[in-house]
C-alpha cells in the first residue's frame, strides 16, 4: 500500500514537472465566453494530470478563478476586500489586486458538474481513505459515465476494506446506467440494491424507465428497497413517537398524581414545568460565571434544586389556596388558572419575555444512529430520564408508607381517613410531589424547547389529554396514554401534517372519553361513582 502511494506520488510529481507548461497553455483556453469551448478547455486541463488541476477545478467551482485584466492571466483569488491572487497554473503568489482589475469566469451547471467529476476522479486517488470513500459516493450519485475508467483503475489498486465496497458500488451504478451487456447490468442492479439508501433508489428509478429485462429488474429492486425504507420509516416514527411520548409523560405524570389523589386539575402545573426550566437557566448562569468546569454537571445540580423549589411552591399553594376550595374541583381549576397567570407574569417581569438560552452539556449533544434510525442524544436522554422518573414513582407508590397512604386516599378518601390516615397531610405532600415532578420535567424540557414564560402553556393541554385519556387508576394508565398519544401523533404527521395530526388526536380523545368517561385505567368500585 505504502509503496504504491509512494509510487503514485512520484508519478504525479514527475508528471507535474513535465506538464507545467502544458497546463499553463491549456488554461488560457478558459478565457472565452463560449461555454462549449470552456468545456473543451476543462477536459484538456484535466487530461494534463497536473497537480494543480484540483486547485483550479475547486476555484472554478467556487467562482474564485478569475482573469487579470491587464495581461489576461488566469489567477486564483483569495480573501474579500483585499484580494490576494496567485497564478492558477503555477501557484506563484502575485500580490494583491482590486476587484475591478479582475474578470470572472462564468460557468453553467454543466461545467459545474464536469468540474465536480474531475475533482471526484482526482480524489479517487487521494491518500486519505475518507476522501476516497467520499469520492466513490459522489460518483455513485453523479451517474457520470466519464468516471467509469478512472473508477476501474482506482478499484484495481484499492486495498482498504472500507473503501473497496464503496468503489464497487459506484462501479455497479455506472455499469447499470452504461450500455454494458445485459448480464453485467443485471448483476450491477443487484449490487446497487444491496447498497440501498435514497441515492440507490433514485438511481434505480431512472434505470426502471423502459420495458426491457434490465428495466424490469430495476423496478423490482426499487420496490424491494421501498418496502425496506417504509419499514425503517415506521420504526423511525415509532422512535420519534416514544420520544414525544416521554415528553408528554414527564409533563403529565405529576398532574395525574394530583388529579388521582385529590380529584382536582392543577392549571398551574405547566407553570411548575416552566419554573423548573428557569431553575436550569439560573443554575447554568451561575456555573458559567463562577465554575465553568462544572457545566457538564449543570443538569444534575438543577434537578434537585428544581424539585425542591417547585415542591415547596406546590405545598405552599395547597396550604394557602387549594385546601380552602376542597370539594369544589371546578373552583380549584379557576383559582389555579389565576395562579398560573400570576406566575407567568412574574417570571416575565423577572427574566423578560424573550427566550432564555439554556445550554446542552457535551454528553447530551450529537446523535445516535442505529440502522436508518437516528435520535439526537438529548431526546434519548429524555426517554431514559422519563423512564427513571416513572420507575421511581412506581417504587414510591408501591413500597413506601407515603405511597400506601396516597393509594388509600385515591381509592376511598373517607375510609382512608377513618383508618387514621392524615388526609390533609397526604393532600399537601401529594401536591408538592406532583409539582416537584413538574419542576424536574422542566429541567428536561429546557433541553428541547425554548425557555420562555409561555413554556408551560404549550404543554398544559397535552398533559390534560394524557391524564383524561389514561385515567387516574394507576400510573400505568398515564404511561400507556402518553406513549399512545406520542406515537399516534408521529404516525399521523407524515400524511396528515403536524397540525391536522394533532387535531385528529384531540378529536379521537374527545370521542374516546364518551366511550370511557374515566379513561383507560379507571378505578372500579362504588367510591368513584358519583
Amino acid at each position, binding site marked *: 500500500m505504502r509503496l504504491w502511494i509512494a509510487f503514485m506520488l512520484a508519478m504525479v510529481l514527475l508528471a507535474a514537472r513535465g506538464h507545467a507548461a502544458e497546463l499553463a497553455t491549456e488554461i488560457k483556453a478558459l478565457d472565452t465566453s463560449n461555454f462549449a469551448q470552456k468545456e473543451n478547455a476543462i477536459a484538456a486541463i484535466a487530461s494534463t494530470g497536473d497537480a494543480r488541476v484540483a486547485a483550479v477545478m475547486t476555484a472554478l467551482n467556487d467562482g474564485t478563478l478569475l482573469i487579470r485584466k491587464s495581461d489576461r492571466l488566469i489567477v486564483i483569488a483569495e480573501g474579500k476586500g483585499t484580494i490576494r491572487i496567485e497564478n492558477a497554473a503555477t501557484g506563484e503568489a502575485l500580490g494583491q489586486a482590486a476587484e475591478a482589475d479582475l474578470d470572472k469566469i462564468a460557468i453553467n451547471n454543466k461545467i459545474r458538474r464536469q468540474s465536480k467529476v474531475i475533482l471526484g476522479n482526482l480524489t479517487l486517488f487521494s491518500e486519505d481513505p475518507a476522501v476516497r470513500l467520499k469520492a466513490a459516493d459522489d460518483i455513485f450519485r453523479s451517474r457520470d459515465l466519464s468516471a467509469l475508467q478512472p473508477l476501474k483503475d482506482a478499484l484495481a489498486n484499492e486495498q482498504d476494506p472500507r473503501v473497496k465496497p464503496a468503489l464497487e458500488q459506484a462501479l455497479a451504478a455506472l455499469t447499470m446506467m452504461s450500455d454494458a451487456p445485459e448480464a453485467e447490468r443485471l448483476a450491477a442492479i443487484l449490487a446497487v440494491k444491496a447498497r440501498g439508501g435514497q441515492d440507490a433508489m433514485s438511481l434505480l428509478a431512472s434505470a426502471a424507465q423502459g420495458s426491457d429485462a434490465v428495466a424490469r429488474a430495476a423496478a423490482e429492486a426499487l420496490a424491494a428497497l421501498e418496502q425496506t425504507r417504509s419499514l425503517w420509516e415506521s420504526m423511525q416514527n415509532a422512535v420519534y413517537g416514544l420520544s414525544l411520548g416521554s415528553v408528554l409523560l414527564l409533563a403529565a405524570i405529576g398532574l395525574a398524581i394530583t388529579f388521582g389523589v385529590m380529584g382536582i386539575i392543577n392549571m398551574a402545573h405547566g407553570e411548575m414545568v416552566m419554573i423548573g426550566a428557569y431553575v436550569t437557566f439560573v443554575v447554568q448562569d451561575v456555573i458559567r460565571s463562577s465554575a465553568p468546569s462544572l457545566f457538564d454537571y449543570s443538569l444534575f445540580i438543577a434537578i434537585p434544586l428544581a424539585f425542591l423549589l417547585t415542591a415547596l411552591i406546590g405545598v405552599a399553594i395547597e396550604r394557602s*389556596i387549594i385546601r380552602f376550595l376542597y370539594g369544589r374541583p*371546578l373552583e380549584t381549576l379557576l383559582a389555579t388558572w*389565576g395562579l*398560573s397567570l400570576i406566575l407567568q407574569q412574574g417570571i416575565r417581569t423577572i427574566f423578560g419575555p424573550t427566550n432564555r438560552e439554556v445550554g446542552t452539556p457535551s454528553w447530551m449533544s450529537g446523535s445516535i444512529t442505529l440502522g436508518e434510525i437516528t435520535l439526537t442524544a438529548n431526546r434519548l436522554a429524555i426517554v431514559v430520564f422519563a423512564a427513571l422518573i416513572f420507575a421511581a414513582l412506581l417504587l414510591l407508590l408501591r413500597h413506601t408508607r407515603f405511597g400506601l397512604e396516597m393509594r388509600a386516599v385515591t381509592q376511598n378518601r373517607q375510609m382512608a381517613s377513618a383508618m387514621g390516615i392524615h388526609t390533609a397531610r397526604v393532600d399537601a405532600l401529594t401536591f408538592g410531589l406532583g409539582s416537584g415532578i413538574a419542576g424536574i420535567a422542566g429541567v428536561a424540557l429546557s433541553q428541547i424547547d425554548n425557555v420562555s414564560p409561555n413554556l408551560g402553556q404549550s404543554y398544559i393541554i397535552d398533559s390534560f389529554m394524557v391524564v383524561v385519556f389514561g385515567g387516574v387508576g394507576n400510573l400505568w394508565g398515564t404511561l400507556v396514554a402518553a406513549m399512545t398519544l406520542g406515537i399516534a401523533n408521529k404516525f399521523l404527521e407524515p400524511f396528515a401534517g403536524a*397540525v391536522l395530526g*394533532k387535531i385528529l388526536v384531540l378529536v379521537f380523545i374527545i370521542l374516546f372519553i*364518551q366511550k370511557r*368517561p374515566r379513561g383507560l385505567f379507571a378505578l372500579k368500585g362504588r367510591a368513584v361513582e*358519583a
Partner: protein
Amino acid sequence: MIIHRLLRVGDRGVLITLALLVLLAILVPALHLLTPTDSPIHVPAYAMALIGKYLCYAMLALSLDLVWGYCGILSLGHGAFFALGGYAMGMYLMRQIGSRGVYGNPDLPDFMVFLNWTELPWYWHGFEWFAFAAIMVLFVPGLLAFLFGFFAFRSRVSGVHLSIITQALTFALMLAFFRNDMGFGGNNGLTDFKDILGFNLQSTGTRATLFIATCLALFASLLVCFAITRSRLGMVITAIRDAESRTRFLGYRVESFKLFAFTVSACIAGIAGALYVPQVGIINPGEFAPANSIEAVIWTAIGGRGTLFGPILGAVLVNFAKSWFTGALPELWLFALGALFLAVTLFLPKGLAGLFDRRATKAANSQVPAAQPEAAE
C-alpha cells in the same frame, strides 16, 4: 307573559339590567349622533364600539351562566361557539365585499385568490344572503353544542372531565382554523369588511344601529334566560346542578335537560359572536384560544353565577378594567386578572351580585348544599 312573571317574581337585578339596557340603547347612539363632537357629553365612535364590544362579551358571559350558574356544567370552550357565530357573520361580510377586494375578484374573497383557489368551497355558498348567514349564526354553534352535548351527557361525562374536553374542543378548533386550507383565511382570519345589508360599516348610522341591535339582542337573551330559569324546566336544570343523581332517581332525563341548556347557551354565544365581528371589524382563530374561554368564565364568576344580571355586570366591569389596565399599566394586567381569579374563588363564591343583594345571597345559600357528594369524586 314573561313581563308579567318578571313583575311578579320581582327579580330586581334583572329588571334594573333590562331598564339599563334600554337606556343604553337610546342614550349612547343619541349622544353619539346628535351632539357636536366638541361637546362634553359627546360619545365618540370608539367609545360606542367599545361599549358594544363589552355588551357582546356580556352576552357570552350570560350564556355561560345558563350552563354553569344554573346547570353546573363548567364549559371551558364557550369561546368556540362565540367564534363560530362570529365566523358565520364574517363569511357573510366577506361575501359582501364582492369585487372591491384588493384582487378585485367578484366571486372569491382575497385570501382565496392569494391561495390560488379557483372556486368557492361548498360551505361558503349561501353566505351571500344575510338571512342564510343569520340562520347559520344560530345553527352552527347550536349543532356543534347539540352533537357534543348529546354524546358527552349521554356518557355522563361531567365535572372536571367535561371542562377538560370542552377545552380540547376549542383548542382543536383553533388549530383547525389556523390552517390555510380550511378556507377561513387561516392566521389572518376574515377582515376588511365593507358593508352590511348594503350599509357602509364605517358610517356613524350603521355603527349606531349595530350598537342598538347589540343592546336589543342582550335584552332578548336576558329575557329568554329569565324565562328558562324561572320555568319548571329551569327548576329541573337547577336541581341537576345541586344534586344530579337525585334528580335522575326522581325520574328526570338529566341528559336531555343538560343538552337543552347547553344548546340554547351555545346559540346565545353564537349571536354574541355575530354581533361582535362587525363592531370590531375582524375575526381570527385567536378567538378560539382556550384562554379566552377561561376569561369568559371569570366574568361570570365575578359578576355572580346563578344570577342573570351578575355575569353581565362582571363582563362589563372586567373588560372595562382590562381596557384601562392595558392602556395604563400593561404589565400589571395579568397580575390583576390572576388575583381576580383567586379572590373571587376564595372570598366571593357568589360574585359581586352576592355582595349587592343580601337577600339573594341568603336564598342562594339555602339552595346550594355546602358539600356536593359528587364534587369530591
